[in-house]
């Protein structure tokens, strides 16, 4: 098969780090904080590389949007088995306001430019929990989507996707080209071992600007403030149901 897969990877604050709100309440402290690839994006890369190893696709291209540092994230994807990378340069204020809508426009433009047949993304990012990029990209391209995938198979030129939904598992068959978003149980990502990191240094990462793709990255959203979650108030224990009703009435709840 001569298919080309586009995999989107996002550089996020590592999940184990204790984050802190900036003193000016405009966001979270990111300077010097440990960052790593979004866990769902790792699963997406692993799936793409597995498809390549099964010879169902020919080339895996890793894409990331952001400042210079996202090149490390792309290198990790290359070390896991991607063939080449594309770094879409977005920095400064634009990067702070970069959201799913702009990223999906960028991915749609890249999919057309690179003539991709399949886009695999993580289902959501752990910093904003939006869960929107995959769906928006599919809509912009007018491609079918298989989201929350826990199993992906290519049969003839259709894609069989098993999705994790509230009621259980749903199996759908969609036409290619398509967008798939990876859920937790899709696979276990491999380690980016040191020899692979060294080899990855020789793989190419192309630099592209959003303007070259005809995408306007200005945001329609404005963050007003960012706060820590409120401290949990201590609960009150009551002895009888009467007391409970009394307390609820006092609080004006009933």
């Amino acid at each position, binding site marked *: 098969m001569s298919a080309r897969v586009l995999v989107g990877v996002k550089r996020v604050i*590592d999940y184990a780090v204790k984050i802190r709100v900036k003193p000016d309440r405009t966001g979270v402290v990111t300077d*010097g*904080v440990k960052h790593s690839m979004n866990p769902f994006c790792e699963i997406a890369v692993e799936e793409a590389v597995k498809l390549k190893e099964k010879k169902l696709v020919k080339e895996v291209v890793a894409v990331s949007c952001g400042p210079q540092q996202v090149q490390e994230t792309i290198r990790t994807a290359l070390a896991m088995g991607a063939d080449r990378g594309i770094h879409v340069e977005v920095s400064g204020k634009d990067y702070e306001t970069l959201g799913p809508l702009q990223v999906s426009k960028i991915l749609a433009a890249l999919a057309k430019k690179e003539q991709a047949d399949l886009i695999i993304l993580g289902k959501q990012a752990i910093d904003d929990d939006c869960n929107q990029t995959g769906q928006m990209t599919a809509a912009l391209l007018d491609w079918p989507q298989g989201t929350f995938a826990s199993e992906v198979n290519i049969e003839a030129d259709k894609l069989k996707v098993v999705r994790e939904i509230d009621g259980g598992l749903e199996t759908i068959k969609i036409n290619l080209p398509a967008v798939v978003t990876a859920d937790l149980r899709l696979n276990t990502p*491999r*380690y980016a*071992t*040191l*020899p692979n990191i060294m080899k990855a240094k020789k793989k190419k990462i192309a630099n592209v600007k959003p303007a070259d793709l005809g995408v306007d990255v200005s945001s329609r959203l404005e963050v007003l403030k960012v706060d820590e979650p409120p401290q949990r108030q201590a609960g009150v224990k009551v002895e009888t149901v009467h007391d409970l009703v009394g307390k609820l009435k006092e609080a004006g709840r009933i």
Partner: protein
Amino acid sequence: MFPACRYSLQARRCVGALKAVQAEHVAPQVCSTRSSSSTLSRITTHYSVYPRDKDPRWEGVEMERFADEADVVIVGGGPAGLSAAIRLKQLASQHEKELRVCVVEKASQIGAHTLSGACLEPTALSELIPDWKERGAPLNTPVTEDKFSILTEKYRIPVPILPGLPMNNHGNYLVRLGHFVRWLGEQAEELGVELYPGYAASEVLFHEDGSVKGIATNDVGIAKDGSPKDVFERGMELHAKVTLFGEGCHGHLAKQLYKQFNLRGNCEPQTYAIGLKELWVIDEKKWCPGRTEHSVGWPLNRNTYGGSFLYHLNEGEPLVALGFVVGLDYTNPYLSPFREFQRWKHHPSIMSTLEGGNRIAYGARALNEGGFQSIPKLTFPGGMLIGCSPGFMNVPKIKGTHTAMKSGMLAAESAFSKITDENLQSETAGLYIPEYEEAFKKSWIWKELYSVRNIRPSFHNYFGLYGGMVYTGIFYWILRGKEPWTLKHNGLDADQLKPAKDCTPIEYPKPDGKISFDLLSSVALSGTNHEHDQPFCPAETQSFSCVYEYVPLETGDGMRLQINAQNCVHCKTCDIKDPSQNINWVVPEGSGGPAYNGM
């Protein structure tokens, strides 16, 4: 002895029993790590204890390792390792030679495992990178005020710092060492050094003739029970003409090398201290950037070596770095350095600074105190030891960064000429470079460590702390360490603990959640994390992040040792202080461990 407060009288009895028993054997009421009873899970499954070639689960697993060659491999991306790398590349470009220098570092990013006060003496930095200011080195806080005091429970007795005393900090900078190390890493990369953070060196490789060939990074993808997972991948071998070991205090590979090459035959055993540190954002009104405060005395008694530091940093927001150091030769098993630290913060002079503030980071790391008497042989065929790993800390100054950096630079300079010499006939496959040790003995590190060599051992007298201060005043301040004798240390730290029955338990106050905190919430702040499904070190003692704990057996009677290796902040204290010395700290999968940011 254990920091967390959940230990019952039963657990204390277990500890007491343990102390009474010698060496290998464990008292039967503690669930033994050595008896392989089928009802008890093994404490460790590490391959150094259970070899793989006898293990049926490892049959048929591909064990071949990918190998690569470099000119110099440096283990550890800290001040010493990075200074050595930078110096090598500087010399290479000066002499127009090509040199491949690789640095492997277990932290996920350079600086993430770095922890220090820190008050930096810029001497070595100015030698290495004279234009450090223009290059944006993060030395933003020159010392403006220097205070030293003796604390009692309620009061503070100021001690004048006369010029010439080691604690005088004029000309030094208060830094966030993690950020400084990160900046050094950037300088190194600019010069072409290959930095590999997230990859831990776990094994030393040897040539047939016994010289060091290089290192191998650890295997990944091994389950907790010691079996290979689907994602198992063998580590990689990095071969070099010479390997520099800069693992920091009590490095695990260095521990192996000491035995292999008998490097400690002619020196005293290394003695250590544990350093605990927190970063606080305080009330702006109380913030005085550049103020440096040190104290001794309360809450430690006069026979326990230790003290505190409190530095006001000038980094944008009102930040203070504060911490507590306790010598690991303390004798009372009930002493908990962590809880002494938390208790110290409640002293009126400290509390007044912290009130209204917020703690944003916590971490811990062992530091070496042996100084001059404990310097081992530094060079062996195929390798050299640099930095805090052999240990060059100036104890009364509590500074080791400048000497670590200088040792890295000296090692680089001695190695460079030998590596690039095309006509060199080396006796061993790995290069032996005794010039490093000669250069070291002629350098200012040697002179500095020699002049303060008797200060730390002078504490081993009846008057403890006060005797030591008197000695320092007379012999260092007046005579500059020129006295003809060299005092000895007291032996291994691990041998110092007295049996619990001979010591009085210490009543520690409960943490109040505003100034003092419990251990678990502190560990959460260090950002520490490891892949949970991997084997870990065998052990039986305390840690600064709630790694080792005794939990009741599921069957009801007795306790068992549970190792929460995920909580490990890599401080190495367990390996140092364990009385039976049966803990062998081994490096976990790379990029795990604490995620310090500018500690």
